């Protein structure tokens, strides 16, 4: 009866021990509430999955129940009347509110725990297929945590928080196939999507509003507004608006262009077509016209246009397969179901009708709560009944569904928010220096105002008539004595202050903001375009999702890396087999093996392939096989080893939840090779869909050895055993759970024997195998166990994930007892988990040990090399993984993070006190002292450097005893719970920072963020988190730089990240090359921009001292405005994008060069002050050379202004030219070009007769002193800088300069 149930087909969430290793306990409220609230505020994603899990659990359990309730067909889909699903038991009016409090989310604390407990074992049938592994693991976590009722407080807090959202909102009513009625009542959005931010009309106000969020822009707006006051109008009024307008325009154009692109893609998206039921026929309709309530028909391989509830599918049982890669990035197929009640109606004949009551649109892609009223029957709907926008229909001819959420309300759209914006460290420092500049600005203005005051007081008597001041208007006799623009001394001083603010405004460089943005844009362009960071496997380029933190990449000191999918590929490969105490580990590739095999054992080769409908079925996945083992399998079944091997592979093939799907995809490699032997033209391959890669690997391995899993339903499994098709009836299945740490399946073999096939973690199975076997076999048995154990140790030391496989035959009596127990448990309403566990324990005992498996968790390409380089670069790589300690250590060994010479400190405590003790012990053993003030960056950093540099040689390690090898800290999640919630944080920090390597195993997602926060809050060091799964989101968002691996686990990490890339190894290039360049470039850009504007402002300031403090500018208005915008901006941008100090080869060769970023060599307060001193000198030269050389001459204000304009432009450009390290064509063009442009502008400005400066430049150009002045200013002003540069170069070169010298001189000699 169970076997008839279609819902039993798929798998429990977590069947196998190694991937079930995320069994960490959630930290208590105190420790993480701070954290979780942070994450919550930044994004939904961080906290989302946990909440989703609850939903899922609840909902699944209901369905699970369905399948077990197995009463009459009518009753089949109705829910048992628990306190959870009161649809039936409660009245109609009550239904709404209670239903939502119950199923929408979060019932009060105890009931959640109880319900979870209750439904623990039977949970997640169909949905489990939709779980990606980390999420499933989280589900595990939740359940376990509920079991231990440890993290209750935290959970409940979150739950209650969200519950209020759910309860207060009205639910959504959708009348099936009646869009009119549906949309009349409620304002549901149409299916038109708009990712663009603006429309033509709203663009201007909205964009301006967004732009003025920048404080700097407000500053300039105020300045421009001040300048509109006639008393203060230093510049022409229009001229003063120019810089602000320019900046606003550039940003607006940039935003506009981006938005236009979004519009374009929106339009494309909106105009796709879909079949919509109209009357009795389906007709095409554009996506944007689809409305809620309409019934759609979607065919295979089409994309789903909106969130639809399935009504019917081409499959009679209502199954549909979808691919959700766009939604969560998982490439495996997921099953969705149409309810049987709706499936039997054919919409073409009888238009469907009914009412769906569902929750308000939300972002939870794993949750959906609704019920459907159809034919006076209320049917609950869950996430398995809804197909979301963006999914693709696969393996199903068509589906029919009703639209419940459309357009912006779809879950995909609600989830498409970007990463939180971060600000770069350098920009933060830059703001600090900007404050200094403001102080300078204030001082200068105060000096001018004070001077004005003194001057006015001193010349009080003369002001009335002095020809150059004249404050009295004499023109009308009767009005004689009226003051002309004179408001009294106080007011005059104030005006003088304000107008000097206007004159000196560019001291705060507005152009810097726009330059920085453009430079980062350019840098991103190069990063994205870097061929070396293109991943051909996933066909993905590097992505810059955040434009604000490019330069942070050059200063990373800590890398927090996820393991699975980041360091490893998350592609499991069956590697080693230990069967009956024999280790088979000489796996060769299939092809090789096949060749060998076909030559020796031709007939068997053919047997391996299953012949079905005249076609060959081959597993899609290729696995290396061991020849000896293949040979063993060819032997007769009577042999003991052979028999063990048979059961071993039977277990691998059967004891899992993998669903085989047949794909019409002839694999050319196989095809060619097999064509000779097999006369079949087409071969179809089997794709194994399972939520755990380990299981897939095992099934594929079994298939490679000839035990091909062909079909799986809830009632039976079809396995092709070496060519012979065997049907095994499934009598029962005990899912993996964290207590038992094993999974078992009870099958009846064709020969009518009943077998229990078990696989699980070594620790759990080795306890329940039969220790004493009947009589004579005792000694070999012990050998077997010992051998297997040694193999297990060997495997894990190689970094393999291990599982133990066991089986036994059941006799009828045992079977009956178990069946009785099992059925009782399955139908029980309370304590089901416990009862099922009890049932399992009846048969999971006295097992025969068959052997063990070793699954390789393949390291990604180039990971050890990348880690080594990063370590040399002075970056600490921490691995935070959900895996168990042994796996973590073995992976760390294989990626060279750990090596044998390291002293491993393992912290694994089960209470606060134990952890405290362990930490203290470790600290005293290795003589680690408390790092008191971590914020004292420079000193601390030095000691770390020495630690890194010298420690490895074992010469001298400060704070450590002689002779200690480098330390490695291994800490597990449970200990972290105790440590992070207590005062031990500091202890851990001290210990961890003294270690060369830190491994954290079995950590929960929130703990990952907690660890990042541990470092972030205690040091000034930059942190980078890299990960690929949803469980890394919190850490990615917490770290200064978040990098997402666009791998297999989903897009969530990418969506939350600042940068996304295909593989871990790109990190090396990203940091060492691009990070270095970006940091150098932006650091210089900022300093140079400060200098450039300050030198100009100071020049103006000196002049004002010679104009009776009257804020006269000798430069024309236009030149003042153009200076930072046109005359000098381009070279800085070009240099900021293109300049490079070192070649990438050098940077990769000497990773230590990255230390420049750690030491903040490109931008630090010392450099700032040096630059400012230099600026002072340069401005003095700039001002006084013309002043003195034209002393007592006829020089007029416009001529000297013109001279100053040119001089300052030449000066700052030559200054830049002196610092440019790589002269490409563009650099030349920009640098010299801007001098030419300046001349051109001056020529144009001086050719307009109305301007008082008419013809100045031509006159000047004919006089010799003019040119001599420019030459002298340039040389004299830059002389100190050049001397300092030459001196440091000669006597105290930095690493970069040394490397540069080597690089350039070597190249010269090469040529």
């Amino acid at each position: 009866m169970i076997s008839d149930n279609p819902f039993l087909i798929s798998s429990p969430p977590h069947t196998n021990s190694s991937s079930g290793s995320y069994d960490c306990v959630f930290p208590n409220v105190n420790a993480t509430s701070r954290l979780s609230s942070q994450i919550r505020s930044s994004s939904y994603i961080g906290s989302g999955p946990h909440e989703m899990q609850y939903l899922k659990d609840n909902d699944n359990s209901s369905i699970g129940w369905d399948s077990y309730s197995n009463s009459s067909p009518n009753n089949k889909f109705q829910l048992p009347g628990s306190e959870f699903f009161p649809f039936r038991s409660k009245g109609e009016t009550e239904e709404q509110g209670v239903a939502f409090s119950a199923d929408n989310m979060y019932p009060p604390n105890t009931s959640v725990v109880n319900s979870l407990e209750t439904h623990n074992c039977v949970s997640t049938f169909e949905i489990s297929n939709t779980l990606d592994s980390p999420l499933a693991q989280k589900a595990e976590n939740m359940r376990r945590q509920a079991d231990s009722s440890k993290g209750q407080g935290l959970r409940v807090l979150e739950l209650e928080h969200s519950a209020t959202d759910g309860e207060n909102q009205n639910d959504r009513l959708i009348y099936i196939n009646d869009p009119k009625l549906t949309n009349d009542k409620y304002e549901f959005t149409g299916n038109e999507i708009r990712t663009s931010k603006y429309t033509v009309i709203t663009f201007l106000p909205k964009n301006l509003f967004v732009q003025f969020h920048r404080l700097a822009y407000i500053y300039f707006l105020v300045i421009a507004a001040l300048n509109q006051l006639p008393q203060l109008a230093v510049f022409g009024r229009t001229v003063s608006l120019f810089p602000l307008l320019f900046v606003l325009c550039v940003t607006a154009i940039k935003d506009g262009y981006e938005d236009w692109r979004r519009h374009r893609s929106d339009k494309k998206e909106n105009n796709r077509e879909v079949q919509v039921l109209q009357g009795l026929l389906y007709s095409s309709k554009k996506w944007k016209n689809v409305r809620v309530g309409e019934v759609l028909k979607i065919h295979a391989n089409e994309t789903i246009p909106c969130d639809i509830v399935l009504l019917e599918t081409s499959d009679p049982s209502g199954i549909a397969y979808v691919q959700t890669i766009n939604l969560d990035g998982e490439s495996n197929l997921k099953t969705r179901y149409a309810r049987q009640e709706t499936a039997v109606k054919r919409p073409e004949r009888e238009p469907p009708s009914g009412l769906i009551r569902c929750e308000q649109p939300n972002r939870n892609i794993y949750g959906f709560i609704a019920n459907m009223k159809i034919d006076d029957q209320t049917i609950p709907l869950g996430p398995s009944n809804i197909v979301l926008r963006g999914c693709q229909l696969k393996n199903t001819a068509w589906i029919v569904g009703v639209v419940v959420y459309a357009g912006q309300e779809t879950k995909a759209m609600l989830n498409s928010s970007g990463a939180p914006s971060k600000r770069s460290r350098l920009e933060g420092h830059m703001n600090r220096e900007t404050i200094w500049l403001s102080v300078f600005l204030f001082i200068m203005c105060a000096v001018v105002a004070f001077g004005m005051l003194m001057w006015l007081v001193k010349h009080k008597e003369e002001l009335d008539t002095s020809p150059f001041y004249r404050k009295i208007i004499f023109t009308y006799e009767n009005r004689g004595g009226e003051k002309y623009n004179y408001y009294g001394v106080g007011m005059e001083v104030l005006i003088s202050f304000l107008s000097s603010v206007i004159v000196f405004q560019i001291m705060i460089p507005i152009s810097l903001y726009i330059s920085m943005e453009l430079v980062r844009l350019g840098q991103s362009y190069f990063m994205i375009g870097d061929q070396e960071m293109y991943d051909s496997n996933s066909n993905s380029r590097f992505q810059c999702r955040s434009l604000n933190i490019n330069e942070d990449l050059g200063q990373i000191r800590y890398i927090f890396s996820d393991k699975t999918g980041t360091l490893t590929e998350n592609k499991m490969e069956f590697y080693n087999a230990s069967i009956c105490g024999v280790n088979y580990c000489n796996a060769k590739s299939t092809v090789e093996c096949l060749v060998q095999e076909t030559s020796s054992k031709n007939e068997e080769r053919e047997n391996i392939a299953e012949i079905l409908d005249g076609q060959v079925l081959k597993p899609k996945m290729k696995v290396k096989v061991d020849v000896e083992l293949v040979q063993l399998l060819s032997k007769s079944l009577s042999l003991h080893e052979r028999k063990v091997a048979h059961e071993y592979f039977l277990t691998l093939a059967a004891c899992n939840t993998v669903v085989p799907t047949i794909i019409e995809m002839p694999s050319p490699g196989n095809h060619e090779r097999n064509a000779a032997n097999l006369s079949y033209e087409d071969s179809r391959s089997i794709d194994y869909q399972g939520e755990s890669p380990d299981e897939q690997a095992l099934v594929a391995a079994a298939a490679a050895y000839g035990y091909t899993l062909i079909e799986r339903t809830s009632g039976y499994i079809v396995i092709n055993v070496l060519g012979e098709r065997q049907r095994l009836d499934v009598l029962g299945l005990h899912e993996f759970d964290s207590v038992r740490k094993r999974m078992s399946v009870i099958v009846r073999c064709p020969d009518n024997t009943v077998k229990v096939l078990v696989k699980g973690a070594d620790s759990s199975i080795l306890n329940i195998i039969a220790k004493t076997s009947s009589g004579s076999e005792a000694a070999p048995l012990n050998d077997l166990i010992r051998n297997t154990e040694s193999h297990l140790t060997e495997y894990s030391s190689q970094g393999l994930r291990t599982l133990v496989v066991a089986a036994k035959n059941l006799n009828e009596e045992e079977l009956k007892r178990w069946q009785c127990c099992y059925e009782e448990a399955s139908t029980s309403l309370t304590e089901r988990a416990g009862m099922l566990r009890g049932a399992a324990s009846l048969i999971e005992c006295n097992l025969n040990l068959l052997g063990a498996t070793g699954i390789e968790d393949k390291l990604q390409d180039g990971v050890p090399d990348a880690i080594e380089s990063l370590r040399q670069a002075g970056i600490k790589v921490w691995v935070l993984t959900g895996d168990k300690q042994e796996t973590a250590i073995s992976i760390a060994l294989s990626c060279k993070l750990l090596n044998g010479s390291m002293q491993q400190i393992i912290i694994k405590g089960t209470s606060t006190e134990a952890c405290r003790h362990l930490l203290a012990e470790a600290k005293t053993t290795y003589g680690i002292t408390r790092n008191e003030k971590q914020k004292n960056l420079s000193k601390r950093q030095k000691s770390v450097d020495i630690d890194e540099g010298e420690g490895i040689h074992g010469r001298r390690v400060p704070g450590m005893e002689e002779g200690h090898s480098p330390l490695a800290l291994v800490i597990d999640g449970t200990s972290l719970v105790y440590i992070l919630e207590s005062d031990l944080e500091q202890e851990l920090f001290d210990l961890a920072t003294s270690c060369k390597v830190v491994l954290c195993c079995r950590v929960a997602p929130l703990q990952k963020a907690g660890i990042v926060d541990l470092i972030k809050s205690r040091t000034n060091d930059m942190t980078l988190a890299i990960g690929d799964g949803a469980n890394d989101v919190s850490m990615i968002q917490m770290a200064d730089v978040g990098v997402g691996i666009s791998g297999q686990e989903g897009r969530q990490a990418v969506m939350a990240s600042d940068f996304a890339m295909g593989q871990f190894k790109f990190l090396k290039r990203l940091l060492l090359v691009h990070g270095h360049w970006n940091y150098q470039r932006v650091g210089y850009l900022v300093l140079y921009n400060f200098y450039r504007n300050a030198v100009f402002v100071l020049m103006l300031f000196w002049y004002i001292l010679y104009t009776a403090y009257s804020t006269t500018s000798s430069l024309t208005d236009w030149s003042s405005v153009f200076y930072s915008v046109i005359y000098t901006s381009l070279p800085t941008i070009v240099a900021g994008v293109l300049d490079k100090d070192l070649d990438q080869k050098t940077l990769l060769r000497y990773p230590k060069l990255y230390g420049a970023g750690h030491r903040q060599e490109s931008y630090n307060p010392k450099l700032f002050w040096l630059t400012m001193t230099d600026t002072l000198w340069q401005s003095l030269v700039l001002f006084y050379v013309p002043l003195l050389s034209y002393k007592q001459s006829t020089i007029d204000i416009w001529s000297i202004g013109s001279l100053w304009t040119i001089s300052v432009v030449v000066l700052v450009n030559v200054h830049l030219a002196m610092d440019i390290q790589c002269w490409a064509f563009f650099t030349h063009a920009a640098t010299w070009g801007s001098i030419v442009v300046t001349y051109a502008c001056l020529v144009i400005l001086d050719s307009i007769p109305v301007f008082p400066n008419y013809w100045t430049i031509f006159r000047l150009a004919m006089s010799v002193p003019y040119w001599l002045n420019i030459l002298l200013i340039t040389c004299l002003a830059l002389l100190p800088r050049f001397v300092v540069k030459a001196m440091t170069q000669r006597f105290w070169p930095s690493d970069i300069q040394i490397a540069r010298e080597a690089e350039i001189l070597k190249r010269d000699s090469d040529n």
Partner: protein
Amino acid sequence: MASRNPTNPNHASSSQPANSRETNPQPRILLRKPKYNRFTQQELPGCRPFLTPQWIITIFMLVGVIFIPIGVGALLASRSVVEIVHRYETECIPEIHRINKLAYIQNDSISKDCSKVLKVQKHMKAPIYIYYQLDHFYQNHRRYVKSRSNEQLLYGLRDNSTKSSCGPETNSNGVPIVPCGLIAWSLFNDTYKFSLFEDIELHVNKTNIAWKSDREHKFGKKVYPFNFQNGSLIGGAKLDPSVPLSDQEDLIVWMRISALPTFRKLYGRIEVDLEADDYITVEIQNNYNTYSFGGKKSLVLSTTSWLGGKNDTLGKAYVVTGILCILLAVVFFLSHIIMPSRFDPKNISGHKYDTVDQ
């Protein structure tokens, strides 16, 4: 090792529908590998300057070698200029009036004539430029600088809109002033007459003293002074209303406001040579009121060189800079001889690290 896994990556990448609007608008089915190009891969060939000791020494030497001759040349030119400066703002006031200079200068009834004798120290070659020099006169004061109307100077009263910039000298008795503004109003009005040994009159050429461009394009040929200096307070010189502004060269010179509070303005030229020990008698009309603000007045006779007037600053600065550079070149050269150390990339603080660690 070939990748053997059920989730074929190509499978994953080929199925990206148009919904992927967040990063890439084009369907992902395209091979997205960035194209190789030296620009995008940041491998553009470029000159990469590096300061080797040779370069440093060469640059310093070069600057020194160029600067010293220029400096010497400039100094020689400056020294060749013969200059006679005569400050007269106090001397030209009779003793009795020196107590209240302001009253003296404002009293129109007293003659402002003043005769001075200057001795020529060295031979002065024609043309000899006559300047007047003012001190403490802030022609660059913002209130002063702004008080003019360029449009009016060029187009006359035709343009009404810009008169406001001329305050406080916009109108006089309700009638607009041409040229308006403080600058024109305060036009310098001392005059000089020169004679050699008291009897031979030296002709002062007052044409072409202003910039040609100013005369031809900035000051209107058809704009005539109007209602000028008619107010109650006379700021300076009056203008002949029958002469267009473009020919009022004193005004044009004056209107080209000076950059600094001490300035010279060209008054005219004497186009005969003066010999050493010649005596020149100058008849000064001391009209201009600098007494109200304590300004100084000087009369300057000067020849010119290719460098302009007498000013040693440029020459000295060049020589000093040049010498400094030569010295630095020597210092660097010596340091190179004594300590020709080259830094090895092996010295990069961590490079030894990777060799040992391997």
